[in-house]
Structures are given as C-alpha cells and as structure tokens.
C-alpha cells in the first residue's frame, strides 16, 4: 500500500458506495478459529471479541469457522468460540484437515463463504492466517486488508473500516472493500483485547463437508518439528517484558536485562538492531517486523523508541523507559522515564524491585 496510498485517496469518494444487488445477500460476521496442536490460537478469541462488536453494530450474527480433523477436540473449539461471543459455528471435520495445508483449507473456507455468504471474514495475522487469507481472497477475488489495528463499520454503506499502520507505522490508513464481498481482514495477535470467557453461552453448529480426497492434494506433510516449549519465548503473551536496545552497547550487558527479568518473572525482548547483531533470538524482537506485545509492564532500556518498535509495544499497560538521552522519542509515549545510564540504573532497579517485592510479599 505504498504508491497506492496516495494514488487511491481521491478514488474513495468517487467510487460508489451502494452495494450491488447481488451482494446484498452477504450477511454476518465470521471469525476463522485457528488452532494448532490441540489448542485455539488466542488471536482467534481476541477476534471473536472484536467480531462481536462489529456484529452487534450491524445487527447480524457472529459466526466462528472451525476446521480440523474429526473428533471431540475440534468440536470443543466450537464451544470455546461460543464462550467468547459466537452465535454459531461452521464446522468442517475431515482427516485431510489434520495438519494445516493451504490447499484443503483454502477450498474448505472458500466453499463455506460461497455457500453461506458472510459480509465480513476475519483471520489472525499468523503464519497460518496470512497464508490462508491471501489464498482465499484471491480465489474469491475480493479485498483483504492485512495487519489491522482497528476495526469499525460504516453503517450506512455496511462497510468494514479496517485501519492499519502504513509506512512502518508513521501513518495509519483506513481501508474499505467497496462492492466486493466478503470484506476480509487479518489482525495480529495481541492487538485486540481478549474478551471475557462466558461458559454459560452456547450456540448452533452448522456442519459441512470438505469434499476432497487425499490423492487430489498435491502438498504432503512429511514431518512436524514442534518448537521446544521451554526454548521458545512467548513474548506476545507475556505479562511483563524487559527489553533492551542498542543502547545496551554489548551483548554481555544483556545480563543486566536478564537479571531484572528473572526477579520479575518476565520475558526478555529486544529491538531489531539487537536481533540483527545476533545478541538475541528473532523470536524476541518486538515491533513492526517482530512481535506485537501487550504486557502489563514493559521496561525499555537503551531503546530510542523508533516508530517501528513503538507499534509493537505501545499498547502495554505501563511502560518504563531508561535512556540517557532526555530527548529520546521513547519518552514521548512511556509512562515513566528515567534519564541515565542503563548500565547503572538496571542493577539498581533490580535491587529496588527485589526489596520492594520482599516487603510486599511479607505484607500481603
């Protein structure tokens, strides 16, 4: 959306907002419920929360789409979707859907869309979601907006207003899919808030068939190598993150970050230059080309606060920034700032937290 941004600006006004007769039948908001290895991806639940709001605004139903191998686990995902706001679930069970593969999933989802005609279809911007969304949108020849940070509807045109960062986050743009249905969007994990789980809710399950045979699927899964759980940092879902940037100067100085993280039971994050220098794993990069995080506390040491980093972390509840440059942009959006050398402040902060927590625990 680069050259396009400017080129297309005037076009929105000119293009007709009135929906074609043939598209009026498209009704309802859908959320693709992604799951791998027996668990729903949290982003799908976050999207159900967001989808609920959109459906209510439009006065339509919210549906979850669950695809997977036959069995109770897959079926239980439908109920989990109900608990998080769905009114109904489309369920496609088939052994061919055991592992994610583009071909059968694209066919399954495309068929459902063509048959039941939703007006809005949301997916998580995960590796699976992006793979699937791009394929489905092209197959359906409809519009798809990636990596949205805000969703809303224009009630008059019944049009999805999908807002996303552009130019690395320096600007935001709102994108509409006019006169094509469904309107598709992907949203990154942790961008939308997690809705409350309400186990008293229930809904209808609409079952459908995949209608494919293994021999017609060209791509085969030979093997799956799971990430060692303890090795793989779960940054997006961490409640506390201590991050270091280039201002930490040397990889050895990251020990100070780890020390503080250990005291807090926190995850360790980093900026891109740090990751590119090989000081930390790519999984720990926070920002536009890394992870979006939403912790309760984010401590940034030696980080300038470039927009590409900011977009990945500024939804954190509380941000503490340590930087020796009082004019560093990070102070524009952190909640608390300490101007000074991270190498001396971090150990002091670690000690301060230690002492404070010791007394807090005694008291509580």
């Amino acid at each position, binding site marked *: 959306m680069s050259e396009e941004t400017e080129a*297309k600006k005037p076009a929105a006004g000119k293009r007709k907002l009135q929906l074609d007769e043939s598209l009026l039948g498209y009704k309802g908001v859908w959320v693709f419920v992604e799951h791998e290895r027996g668990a729903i991806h949290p982003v799908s639940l976050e999207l159900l929360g967001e989808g609920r709001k959109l459906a209510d605004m439009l006065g339509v139903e919210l549906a979850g789409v669950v695809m997977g191998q036959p069995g109770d686990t897959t079926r239980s995902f439908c109920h989990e979707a109900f608990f998080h706001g769905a009114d109904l679930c489309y369920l496609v069970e088939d052994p061919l859907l055991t592992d994610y593969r583009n071909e059968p999933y694209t066919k399954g989802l495309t068929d459902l869309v063509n048959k039941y005609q939703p007006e809005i279809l949301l997916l998580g911007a995960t590796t699976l979601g992006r793979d699937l969304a791009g394929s489905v*949108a092209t197959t359906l020849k409809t519009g798809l907006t990636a990596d949205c940070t805000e969703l809303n509807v224009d009630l008059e045109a019944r049009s999805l207003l999908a807002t996303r960062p552009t130019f690395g986050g320096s600007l935001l743009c709102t994108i509409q899919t006019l006169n094509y249905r469904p309107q598709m969007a992907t949203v990154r994990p942790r961008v939308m808030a997690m809705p409350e789980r309400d186990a008293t809710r229930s809904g209808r399950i609409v079952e459908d068939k995949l209608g494919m045979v293994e021999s017609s699927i060209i791509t085969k899964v030979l093997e799956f190598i799971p990430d060692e759980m303890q090795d793989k940092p779960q940054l997006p879902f961490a409640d506390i993150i201590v991050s270091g940037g280039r201002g930490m100067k040397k990889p050895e100085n990251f020990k100070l970050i780890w020390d503080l993280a250990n005291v807090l039971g926190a995850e360790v994050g980093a900026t891109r230059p740090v990751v590119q220098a090989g000081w930390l794993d790519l999984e720990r990069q926070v920002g536009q*080309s890394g992870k979006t995080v939403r912790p309760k506390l984010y401590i940034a040491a030696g980080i300038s606060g470039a927009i590409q980093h900011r977009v990945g972390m500024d939804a954190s509840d509380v941000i503490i920034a340590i930087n020796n440059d009082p004019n560093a942009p990070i102070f524009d959006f952190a909640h608390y700032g300490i101007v000074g050398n991270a190498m001396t402040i971090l150990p002091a902060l670690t000690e301060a937290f230690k002492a404070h927590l010791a007394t807090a625990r005694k008291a509580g």
Partner: protein
Amino acid sequence: MHIVVCIKQVPDSAQIRVHPVTNTIMRQGVPAIVNPYDLYALEEALRLKDQYGGRVTVLTMGPPMAEAALRKAISYGADDAVLVTDRVFAGSDTLATSYALASAISQISKDMPVDLVFTGKQTIDGDTAQVGPGVAKRLDMQLLTYVSKVRSLDTENDEIVVERRSEGGVQVLKTSTPCLITVLEGNNEMRFATMANMFRASRYPVKIWNKDEAGIEDVTKTGLKGSPTVVSKVFAPTPRAVKAEIIQCESNEPGDLSVTLLAKMFNKHPKLEKEIAKRAV
C-alpha cells in the same frame, strides 16, 4: 531449472518522515531500496541455481525507476530481469498486483518454463504478505509460505521438499513444481557481488514491458479498477496526551528508585504490584 524471483523497490521506511502539517509522506530524499525480505528470496534462488544449475529471472512491477532494483539483482547474479511498468497499473492493491505479476510470469515462462516462483515474506511498505499467495492462486500453483529452507529439489521428478515455519513449529512439506515459495528472512545472507557481475549489471538491457508485453488480457483487473480495496483515509497516529513522567532520583541507588519510581507506580497501579508479587521469584 528456471526460478522467477519477485522483488519490489520500496522506500527505505526507516527514513520516511511525515509532514506534521499536511500529514503526507515526504518521500523527497528517501532512498529507494530493494525490499530487504526479497533479498533473502533472491539469495535462496541463487543458491539453488549454484547447486542445480538453470536460470534466475527477477521480476518487478513498478515505476520506471524500479529498474535500479533489478540491476542490483543482476549484480548479485540473477540472469535476466523484467520490469513491468505501465500507467494502467497505478493504484494496484495486492489483488491487482498479483494479477499483473501472474500475467508477466506466464509470459516469462514462454521463453523457458518456470519451475519455481520465489517472493519475499512481505514488503516493508505494503507489509501484507498477500502478493505471494495471490500470485500462486492465479497461476494455480502450489503455495508454500514462510519457507525457511529448501531441503531438497528433485528436478527429474519435479518434486521439492521444504521446511515451513508454522505457528507451533516447523512443517516439512513435499510438493510438486511448479510452485510458489515465500521465503522467510534470516536463513541466508546476500552474497557480495563480483566485479564482473557489477559490470554486467550496469550494462544489462533490462526488459521493460508494458501491459501488452506483460500479457495483460483484462485491463479492468489492473490498477485502481482491479483493486477491491480503497484507502479511504490516511492520518497520523494521535500522540499520547501526556509524555513520560521523568523520575527524578538523587542517585541511582535502589533505595531512591524504590521511593521515586516503584512506590509511585504501584500506588497508581495496585493490580500490577500484586501481579508482579504473585509471579516473581
């Protein structure tokens, strides 16, 4: 074996500034670079060529100045370069872009059948990761996204085995060529061009195709007309109303910080204190 690598010239977004008054992007002086993610795709293609022989063609759709990106690719060792440029493409979204690229790839394959199409993981300006899947669907090719490694290639039987990053781990997939692969970053590093290739690049007659040469059959599928999405508003993020409260501490002693920062913060966010106390060791 023939690999087409789709690359895009993008403004170096690290250097982009937004005009504070008009809220428009100031491109002046912002250097154009090859989308960094596409370089991983190109290097992977060049490695396969080193191993299995064949040809690497780089393809881009963009304004005439995008030729520079292709020349750069030639200097790294690509054999041929095609720039698809035409007024009708202006304003293309990912759906329209994938149509133009798919048409061009069909044209390219008339010269020599295409076995593999590589794209980057995503661009740094569009940032959608949609163009690759779009091209695959339009060409009716198998699609393998987020590929971190090509394990093996069997040119006899048109089979390829790759490692694909998925949410919980790595999938090892086998499929038939032709197929489209979006290449994950970080698994290779672009080579340093030889002097001979630098000369070749600066002299190479890049193929410049208009819509007809690119084999566009239906103009309504290109540019603005062929783009279902419309940018209806561009605006700057609202700056946070209050800036950081700068903690003044006499010294960096833990005791001082305890009073100046922690007490203050926990006073305002009592839940946070409990949260930390609960989990901390």
